[in-house]
């Protein structure tokens, strides 16, 4: 590979890492404010994942899961999807509601609303941190919550990128409270969003 490309590629990687770290710190701060208690986000791990393998990262394509989807418009147009296996979504709900782990046994309207809000706040804060750092605009849509098989949920973002590339950017982190932590997977896809396509 040409040394200039390698250099430029490495610089872009480093830039993305730095922005992701900064954005995670901002997001954690915002979530802490929203919840009135300290939430930390672990330094995100970034990975490009082939679309055929994405489902396996969150329990397999038939795993029942919660997907929180936002469309982003502006310069940084694209899609963000937060996916959690159902069990982790329930643990996250426990964490949000400050109840012991194992309390939440099903996801009714209140729980779904709480999850939508966390997805909304974290994706929005994250995108606005990237936007501020880069000088590019990013406006998130209201969130949509889906509870279904992982494969079916992922179709929403895979159709957006399937025609553009064979890989999706995974941003893996943890939400950490005082006594528990939850693995969080954000999937990011750049490009024209559903709202823009005819």
């Amino acid at each position, binding site marked *: 590979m040409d040394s200039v490309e390698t250099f430029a590629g490495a610089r872009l990687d480093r830039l993305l890492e730095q922005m992701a770290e900064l954005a995670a710190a901002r997001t954690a701060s915002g979530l802490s404010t929203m919840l009135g208690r300290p939430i930390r986000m672990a330094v995100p791990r970034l990975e490009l994942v082939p679309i055929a393998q994405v489902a396996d990262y969150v329990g397999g394509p038939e795993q029942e899961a919660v997907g929180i989807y936002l469309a982003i418009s502006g310069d940084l147009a694209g899609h963000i999807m937060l996916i959690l296996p159902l069990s982790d979504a329930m643990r996250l709900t426990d964490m949000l509601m400050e109840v012991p782990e194992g309390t939440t046994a099903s996801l009714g309207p209140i729980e779904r609303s709480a999850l939508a809000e966390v997805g909304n706040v974290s994706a929005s804060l994250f995108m606005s941190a990237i936007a501020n750092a880069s000088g590019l605009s990013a406006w998130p849509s209201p969130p*949509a919550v889906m509870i279904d098989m992982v494969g079916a949920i992922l179709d929403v973002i895979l159709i957006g990128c399937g025609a553009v590339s064979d890989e999706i950017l995974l941003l893996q982190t943890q939400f950490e409270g005082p006594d528990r932590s939850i693995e969080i997977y954000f999937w990011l896809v750049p490009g024209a969003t559903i709202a823009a396509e005819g």
Partner: protein
Amino acid sequence: MAAIVSTKAGVVPPSAGDAHVKAASLGQIVVSRDGEDVLVAYGLGSCVGVVGWDPQARVGGLLHALLPQFRPGDNVAKYVDTGILELLRQMENLGAHRQRIVWYVVGGAAMLKMPDMKSEFDIGSKNAEMARQVMERERLHIKVIDVGGTAGRTVKLNLRDGTVSVKTLGLGEKIL
């Protein structure tokens, strides 16, 4: 420190458990004439699963397509229109006869309903519609079409007897 890892596409993760389960992931086709095999497409949302079965040659095939219309230079199995033709070709290579194959079309759900969507953008129904059109144009006989709705589906073809079943969360599994 976070690091970005770029992994090369094309690696198919092994199906968990039973060695005879052959999964078609996104943009993949699986075909077989082994009576022990079960072909499966998991978690079809807006994607469409197209199943073909030749009861005489005992050849089965499954396509897991993502989008309705082929874009040149890309993988043909990602698209309903070219995927169906490629599936047919691969089944014929294993001894299936076009006139004998029975077809099933499954999936094409509307997973996302957002309040500020400009139009009723529904790739699921476009996929289902393309499947219908291609089948009609090619004079292929659809035995069962189970599409639409808002729930994900898993479809399986059992090559032992040609049974096709569909599973949704909450509604269990039914034979088509």
